[in-house]
């Protein structure tokens, strides 16, 4: 893969140029917290902090209007009502700039679910096709980072179109996809030269900072072994507050709810994020709820990422190791330690 270089100064110009015909989502300081917002006048990308919100929302927004409708009454005969429906397929072309490799990797989980041989979700697919990910490799790590333990790394390219790596004076840029290659044809990019070696060193150094990786490969079996162990799950979930911070901020959580919100004779069909940590998630119309306790709900979240998803799809964990769920958890619950505890518990059970 060709390695190019772009200076800090040119990066801003490039964003400016991209913004002419794209919505360019960049991480910005939003009241002290870092979120993705369209690039615009006076907005500077914040690249030294990990965005709180994940880059999934460029393609999978928290609220998405699937269609709007209006009931029309026949003025001659009010008994006759017709309904007009407008499908609202997204039209915008977008670039997500400055997401971290972990966050972008999350999109591969979405891809497996929303666009596969059986299903093509038109809303997701359209946005995904129209969105480019220019990802920024990490050069430092946080206590909550564990990308290296889930098959990823600080310079993972999965899901990205272009990977930037911070070097002296700017970034090296590597195209990951053909679309990415086209992007790098822009005049702001120079040949990488010896910057490329520097970039490789940065990648290597960052990976080393993460240290030894814990082995989660037997997680599906371990989790299965403690599946019926209610005491274990209730214990793990004891501190859980049942809020949706972990799932909403997670780059791989894709659950949604569809509702009609109407006003008078008009209305819209809305797709909005849902969270399996909430009591309402599995609440059935009858009032019955198969997951009444937070232990059962936490079990679902952990299992989904470390067992169900890899079983159903391509063996990849549905966790990208970004650590958002740990960092944003009001009770500091650590998904790593839950899976580790499950591994230990199952090992203990086996040895008995």
């Amino acid at each position, binding site marked *: 893969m060709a390695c190019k270089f772009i200076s800090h100064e040119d990066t801003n110009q490039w964003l400016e140029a991209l913004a002419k015909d794209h919505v360019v989502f960049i991480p910005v300081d939003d009241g002290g917290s870092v979120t993705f917002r369209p690039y615009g006048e006076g907005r500077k990308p914040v690249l030294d902090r990990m965005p709180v919100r994940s880059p999934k929302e460029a393609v999978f927004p928290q609220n998405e209007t699937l269609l709007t409708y209006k009931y029309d*009454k026949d003025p001659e005969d009010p008994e006759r009502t017709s309904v007009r429906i407008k499908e609202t397929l997204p039209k915008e072309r977008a670039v997500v700039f400055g997401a971290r490799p972990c966050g972008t990797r999350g999109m591969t989980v979405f891809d497996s679910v929303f666009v596969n041989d059986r299903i093509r979700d038109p809303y997701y697919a359209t946005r995904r096709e129209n969105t480019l990910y220019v990802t920024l490799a990490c050069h430092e790590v946080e206590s909550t980072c564990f990308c290296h333990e889930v098959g990823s790394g600080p310079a993972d390219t999965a899901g990205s179109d272009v990977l930037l790596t911070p070097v002296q004076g700017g970034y090296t840029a590597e195209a990951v996809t053909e679309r990415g290659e086209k992007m790098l044809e822009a005049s702001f990019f120079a040949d990488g030269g010896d910057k490329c070696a520097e970039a490789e060193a940065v990648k290597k150094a960052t990976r080393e900072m993460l240290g030894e990786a814990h082995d989660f490969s037997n997680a599906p079996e371990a989790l299965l072994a403690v599946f019926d162990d209610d005491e274990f799950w209730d214990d793990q979930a004891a501190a859980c507050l049942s809020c949706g911070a972990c799932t909403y901020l997670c780059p791989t959580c894709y659950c949604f709810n569809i509702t009609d919100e109407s006003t008078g*004779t*008009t209305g819209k069909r809305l797709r909005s994020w849902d969270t399996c940590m909430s009591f309402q998630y599995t609440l059935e119309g009858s009032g019955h709820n198969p997951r009444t306790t937070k232990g059962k709900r936490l079990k679902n979240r952990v299992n989904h990422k470390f067992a169900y998803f890899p079983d159903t799809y391509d063996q990849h964990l549905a966790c990208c190791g970004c650590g958002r769920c740990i960092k944003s958890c009001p009770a500091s619950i650590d998904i790593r330690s839950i899976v580790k505890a499950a591994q230990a518990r199952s090992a203990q059970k086996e040895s008995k």
Partner: protein
Amino acid sequence: MRIGVFICHCGSNIAATVDCPAVAEQAKGLQDVVFTTDTMYTCSEPGQNEIIEAIKEHKLDGVVVASCSPRMHEATFRRALERAGLNRYMLEMANIREHVSWIGKNKERNTVKAFELVSIAVAKLRNNNPLYANKFDVTKRVLVIGGGVAGIQAALDCADAGYQVVMVEREQSIGGKMAKIDKTFPTVDCSSCILGPKMVDVSQHENITLYALSEVEKIEGYVGNFDVQVRKKATYVNWDECTGCGACMEKCPSKKNIDKFNEGISKCTSINIPFPQAIPKKAAINPEGCLMLQKGKCGVCAKVCPTKCIDFEQKDEIITEKVGAVIAATGYDMFDHSVYKQYGAGQYPDVITSLQYERLMNASGPTGGHIIRPSDGKEPKKVVFVQCVGSRDPSVGRPYCSGFCCMYTAKQAILTKDHIPDSDSYVFYMDIRSPGKGYDEFTRRAQEQYGVQYLRGRVSMIYPKGDRYVVRGSDTLAGTQVEVEADLVVLAVGAESAKNAPALAEKMRISYDNYGFFMEAHPKLKPVETNTAGVYLAGSCVGPRDIPTSVGQGSAAAAKVMTLFSKDKLESDPQVSSVNTSRCIGCMKCATTCPFGAIKEVTDRAGNVKAEVIETVCQGCGICTVTCPQGAIQLQHFTDNQILAEVNALCQAQLDF
């Protein structure tokens, strides 16, 4: 839903300033509206028939009438819906007359407003549900609290109508204040001669159970189904055996008890029957004065009692009664004049209250009807009456007029002349209030025939001078200060609410005013009803009343009870709160704020605490719905979703299309 909208012209009342056909036309565009029309008078027979026909023809399941105020015709249109087979709660009204056509002249803006009110009504109606009344049994027994003349009248009327009556009297005998009075105005006939027979009727009526020296401890339940606990206080005399012979009273060595019946102007024995005509005519021991109960030695009464009915071991007894209605006739108390320092603060022996004076005049009173000065037993030759003592005086917290003092003062002045022909009487008054049949003539007679001197003015001071009293006041008509030397001063004390009235009101879950008088449901249109269904009021517990009014109210309350009891089953208003138990977390905050005690705590099968509404007690105010943080308790017909639908219809923008 299939909604029909009817826009009323109300002749020209609405149509003059609202374009009714245009509103009807526009309403066709509203969600679920399948039929609209405008009519001249929707409330008229043909107007109502039009609704009924439209319901049938267009298979409507909800109706909006835009016309006058629902306070005017909601009941009318609900009946029309019922005639057409629809549930009465599937009606909504838009008030386009009082709230639109009558208050604005701009036809264009009125029309817009009228349409919007119709839109709100449609939005709410789309969230309405049919509601059905529950039927429940009525216990056809009535509790009468208080055995004064009002309570006696109410009890006798109910008993004569064939209903069981439970009467609870706090004192040892029924009769109330009227039993203490010598003669009544303006007829000057003997009080006990007219009340006595009624008291006897109470004791002999087979439908009346009387608990004297008893108090209501607790009232639970709701209209038609109250559970009442009565505390029968220990009398230390077995009343089933006591014949009222009075032998015990004659021999009782403890004779220094304050005679409450005689307003403290005489003493009585510890075992006592308060007066010869008492009902029940039974003796009771005052435990504070009784040597046996206090010191453990005496027992003279037990020795002399021919039926051996003295029981020093007797305890209070709690009796439970089931009744369907309650009449409170708890009367009033006399104002305590000792707060008036300038009148001697109750320290001058010959400055007495009007009710004490009644006892002095009464032939069955402690003096045998001879008017004498309490201090020296001499006959007073100059008597001064001071009116409005504890009435119309904000400085002592009694700004109201007690109503009957003017009349009884005139009566007492007349009687004074009858008793002591060579006496002179003076009355200090503020205004003479005598608006009753023959009342004003009576006060005139006092002045003109009996030569009572009426002085218009407040008394500023009473002070002793030798063995007499100087009453200093103003004569505002003459514009001078006057001083009258009197042998006896009678203070026409006003009425105040009975002691413990507020506590009793809370037991009955009715409200009371600042002065402790019970609140009627409406001061004019519902004078004997309360806001608690099944609880009625009679007599002076509502405010000062004279005898005829009290008797009238006793009968009125009885009539209300009879109306209630005329039905075998009662219907509860379905417009009450209802708990969604799957949302309720059992915090019971709703029960805390409910003014009617209509919410009780229950435990579901899983052992969780839940709130439950007693539908028959709930009055439908909705305080609970606002209190409940989960929105689990919803006032039917005014649910959150119904009101939110109205708010949204008004405020929320439709989507562009």
